[in-house]
């Protein structure tokens, strides 16, 4: 049992995916990528073996943030961008809970950007699922902080002007201890990433590329089409050489002159130069370089999988430790003594 899960009560009997389905009708648009993520999460949850009542989903505002209503666990659908803050209060006061945050690119990176980066640096025991569809869905199609430059939308008829965030780069820069990326339609990969995130002590950020078939359809087709994906997607696996392409003919290597990463065609002569993925590396440098590898426009050379998975003290644990240390140092709470203080005086009844 990992530290992340050790304090959470176990389910008495084995649960199934159906146990995690709430009685609420799912109201996403037909064909939305969110359905696949929901099914994957519901299918994966029983695996954790946790008591269902000790699992909480907290969300902000946006299409993805309706997620908690569909999970038969405790849940809160809060306000725009604030889910990480609310979940921080819950997780740091209740270490017996498994707390999940569901958010989107607008919710997490625009209005809630501040809370996201601070949750990551604190390393609160939260699992954050960031559904990135590179568009605002619920407000009907404005560009988002992950939209490509020049995006034509209702609010940007002449094209958007601002450079997008790369959520993985951002998380790494915010001192995140666990950062991963996966794709809504790849259930096997999605589930494997969720598994590792759940196991991680501290904050885990999982960026999920998710298709909005109404306002940004096909945003990730380059990564989904069988033919294209072979050349476009780089699957990161800890301890394995970073190779991809038909017959693994491509590899990622470090340019000795610039220190940057680049893609090479692997030959017996240069095979030794292919990087081996080390998600546990103390330094985030290589993980960051990997996050910059993809072409932001074509998505070619997009790494998916766990970029970084390192250990740092968990905020909730440190907080609880301070409470224990305070009792050791100052003794157990004595309200009478506290109220009286050290500078009191007594008035005796006057006769």
């Amino acid at each position, binding site marked *: 049992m990992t530290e992340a899960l050790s304090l959470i009560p176990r389910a008495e009997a084995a649960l199934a995916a159906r146990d995690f389905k709430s009685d609420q009708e799912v109201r996403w648009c037909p064909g939305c990528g969110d359905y696949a993520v929901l099914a994957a999460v519901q299918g994966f949850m029983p695996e954790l073996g946790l008591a269902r009542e000790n699992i909480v989903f907290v969300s902000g505002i946006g299409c993805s943030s309706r997620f908690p209503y569909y999970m038969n666990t405790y849940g809160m659908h809060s306000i725009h961008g604030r889910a990480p803050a609310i979940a921080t209060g819950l997780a740091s006061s*209740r270490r017996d*809970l498994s707390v999940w945050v569901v958010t989107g690119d607008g919710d997490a990176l625009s209005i809630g950007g501040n809370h996201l980066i601070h949750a990551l640096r604190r390393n609160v025991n939260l699992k954050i699922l960031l559904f990135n569809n590179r568009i605002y869905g619920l407000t009907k199609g404005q560009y988002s902080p992950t939209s490509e430059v020049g995006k034509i939308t209702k609010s940007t008829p002449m094209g958007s002007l601002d450079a997008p965030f790369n959520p993985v780069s951002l998380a790494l820069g915010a001192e995140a201890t666990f950062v991963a990326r996966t794709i809504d339609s790849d259930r096997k990969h999605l589930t494997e990433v969720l598994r590792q995130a759940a196991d991680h002590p501290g904050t885990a950020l999982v960026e999920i590329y998710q298709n909005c078939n109404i306002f940004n359809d096909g945003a990730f087709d380059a990564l989904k089409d069988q033919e294209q994906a072979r050349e476009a997607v780089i699957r990161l696996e800890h301890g394995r050489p970073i190779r991809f392409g038909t017959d693994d003919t491509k590899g990622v290597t470090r340019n000795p002159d610039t220190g940057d990463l680049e893609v090479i065609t692997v030959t017996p002569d240069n095979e030794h130069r292919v990087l081996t993925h080390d998600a546990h590396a103390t330094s985030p440098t290589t993980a960051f370089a990997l996050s910059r590898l993809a072409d932001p426009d074509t998505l070619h050379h997009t790494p998916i999988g766990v970029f970084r998975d390192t250990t740092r003290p968990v905020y909730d644990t440190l907080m609880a430790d301070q409470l224990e240390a305070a009792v050791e140092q100052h003794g157990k709470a004595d309200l009478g003594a506290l109220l009286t203080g050290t500078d009191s005086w007594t*008035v005796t009844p006057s006769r």
Partner: protein
Amino acid sequence: MANGTEVRRVDRVVIRFAGDSGDGMQLTGDRFTSETASFGNDLSTLPNFPAEIRAPAGTLPGVSSFQLHFADHDILTPGDAPNVLVAMNPAALKANIADVPRGAEIIVNTDEFTKRPMAKVGYATSPLEDGSLDAYRVHGVPLTTLTVEALKDFGLSRKEAERSKNMFALGLLSWMYHRPTENTEKFLRQKFAKKPDIAEANIVAFRAGWNFGETTEDFAVSYEVAPATKAFPAGVYRNISGNLALSYGLIAAARQADLPLYLGSYPITPASDILHELSRHKNFGVRTFQAEDEIAGIGAALGAAFGGALGVTTTSGPGVALKSETIGLAVSLELPLLIVDIQRGGPSTGLPTKTEQADLLQAMYGRNGEAPVPIVAPRTAADCFDATLEAARIALTYRTPVFVLSDGYLANGSEPWRVPHPDELPDLRTRFATAPNHTLADGTEVFWPYKRDPQTLARPWAVPGTPGLEHRIGGIEKQDGTGNISYDPANHDHMVRTRQAKIDGIAVPDLEVDDPTGTARTLVLGWGSTYGPITAAVRRLRAQGTAIAQAHLRHLNPFPANLEEVLARYERVVVPEMNLGQLATLIRARYLVDARSHTQVNGMPFKAEQLAEVLQEAIDD
């Protein structure tokens, strides 16, 4: 007295210590207050300092002061005007002289009355020599020189030695007013435990100040203010500031509710001291979370409340503005939450270190949609303790966010407090839901998160970890009972009215009216920290034989049930407030009463004398 000094008995004294921000005036005032409290006088204090940590030295904006009123009887305010002004430099004299009545004593540090410091604040000639202070009894004391001289054996630099001049002044004043000194010496030893040299230097300066008073002939009179024996019922007492009382109120509320306390907060003047204080008491199971911003502060507190903690956020007006959306969410979620607003001058950044009561309407209405939130306002520094317990009672009983509206004056001011025994405190225990609360038509037992208690209209509090009660709540309108998302128009109308009815139905004590003769035709109605000045003004009027009735609101939402009847009893209602008439607006709108507003927004509490004049005019009108 050794030199045959005359000892004069007086019933009350107001002292103001004034100096540069770096002169340690707040510490000096605090120590004099502690000495006075332990002596048994009743007292009330008014610290007054600039927002800048160290404003340019010797300038008017850099002046920091501390006023203390103490007496042999019970008193209510820090006093309108000082009997004694201690001015550590020309700026302090200039900034405060207008408040000092003729005939009062002024003690000045003559060392600072040199050309440059005087020129800096616009004194062309020395006020100590040009006759402009002839109406006062001025004691020129070379405080700096005397302090440096007293410390010459300590091997300190002149600059280091000069720093103890506030303790010299404290020693002098302690002699003048016969204050006990042991605790100050003990305090200095503790404060400088890691620098015993500095501790000793301060103690030597303190004693030198005392001895100076005793030996010099300039101080021909010393004063005795007898303990206020009649003002205090038997009990254990301590001196306490509003923010400390409020912090203790939070710790006590959590203990009485048997819930862990969770504070989510972002530093802001004048509320930060609550965060500081609570973070010192982790052995009470108190979790303090210094958030990345105001919004995260309340967000974390609300998250903790969802998990079954007593969630609290502390802030001031600008912070409330940022928290508004989350307060609305708490209204919709119907979870207990305390929002502590230590009001300061506004709008925007306003006057961070000065007091005001101008957040009443923000607390009352400052949210989107119909989002009623109960409001409790403490009336004195010590009352911050009880008001916080009362706010917690409402939050826990009715599952609602509740405002505690304190202000900068209460927060930093202090007064004696009869320390309650923990057994005297109210029982605030509440029940979490543990089992299904509804049976469907087919006989299935289910949990409905919005099925209400028929009496209080409170919904059940089912915390994560409770098997079988898994449920989802959120800010979207929900169906009554089930809590499921509902956009049904009739349901929304019902829910809006039900949330309002829940708050309107909160049981609050009736408003007590103080009308000793029963003949008053004018009622003065206040709320919050104006209690002291209003009551002092009312006493003045009654002493002159004028009949006036007084009532003071602690509950601003809902109002006490008898408020309408009370208002109807009087021909005139005067509402003094440190804003532009916010309570008066509510009263006029709610009860169609022609309430007269008297307002002041200068960052300072009302002065009793001026207020008495205003009330007299209203009565005579």
